[in-house]
């Protein structure tokens, strides 16, 4: 049955993907492209759309493939399939961690891991900055090209936030900031 097959395939993908959504692409090529559910070129196009829209890549791709193969219910099956392994594994780990949080070695391990996590987030920010402002297209192998409009937007937004912080004595909320950046984006990039 196609619905069960969708669920099962994406369950496997969810279970065996470590790290971010893009680590999933080889698995998707192996499991989904080979079944003829999505063509290689459609997958490449979809990665671009997914990159530009909100939401984790994993959920985006499973919804998209599920919908094109099995309609609405197919999309639901595939999406539940991809998130279920995370729910199960994380709930078990969270319960275990709760017991061992005070353990000296667990605390030691967490102390070691925190600077790494901070570096991972900072590197994501830096790589995104380089991609958006200095690179043509989305690949690091692509041509270099300085995007003056994105750079201008970055400066304008940072300036506005700085002033807001000075005047209101608190920083602008994340959702409001994103709304503002979308609005300014429309103004700057369509003019």
């Amino acid at each position: 049955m196609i619905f069960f097959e969708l669920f099962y395939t994406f369950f496997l993908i969810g279970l065996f993907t470590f790290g971010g959504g893009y680590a999933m692409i080889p698995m998707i090529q192996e499991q989904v492209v080979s079944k003829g559910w999505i063509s290689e070129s459609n997958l490449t196009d979809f990665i671009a759309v997914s990159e530009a829209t909100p939401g984790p890549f994993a959920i985006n791709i499973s919804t998209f493939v599920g919908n094109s193969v099995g309609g609405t219910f197919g999309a639901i099956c595939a999406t539940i399939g991809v998130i279920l392994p995370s729910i199960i594994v994380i709930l078990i780990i969270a319960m275990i961690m709760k017991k061992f949080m005070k353990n000296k070695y667990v605390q030691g391990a967490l102390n070691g891991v925190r600077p790494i996590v901070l570096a991972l987030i900072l590197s994501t920010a830096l790589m995104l900055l380089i991609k958006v402002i200095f690179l043509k297209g989305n690949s690091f192998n692509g041509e270099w090209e300085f995007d003056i409009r994105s750079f201008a937007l970055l400066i304008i937004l940072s300036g506005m936030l700085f002033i807001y912080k000075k005047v209101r004595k608190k920083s602008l909320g994340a959702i409001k900031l994103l709304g503002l950046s979308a609005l300014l984006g429309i103004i700057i990039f369509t003019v």
Partner: protein
Amino acid sequence: MKIGVFTFGGGYAMIPIIEEEVTKKRKWISEIEIMDILAISESTPGPIAVNTATYVGYKVAGVTGGIIATIGLAIPSFAIIFVISFFYQDFMKWPVIAAMFKGLKVGVIILLFSAVIRLKKGVKVNFISVLLFVIALSLMLVFSFIDTGFKYLSLSLILLGIITGIVLTLIANKKERKE
């Protein structure tokens, strides 16, 4: 109630928003805990965003909380992609949509940087932690420019942090015993 927190979560955008909503506004979880959750999410199977949502949900409201938070995270992207999938080939050709997403990306960059600044408070500054930070950051940047085909760099870095932390605790234990 809980779902509202995650309405615009996702991808890169997700970490700073969760961090702001959950630690700063609602004080459900401390800055230190959120880093631990991120590390665990990275080193367990499944997409980071989904893992983080489940973990935060569990911390705040138990098993049900974990499940509801994850579903809450999935619904917005599910809905958006569901709509887009009907006409996605033309989607990015609309100049307004493309411009809006370009703007959003710049917003996300600013959010990520401010999250780093806030989360920095949770890290004890000493020789080892600065060293780990520098190693991880430089490897991440170098690897993104040189395509080595190695896909588990962030996972390996997390493991490096865990091992270093445990070894340091072992050393500290030995010292204590001697004294």
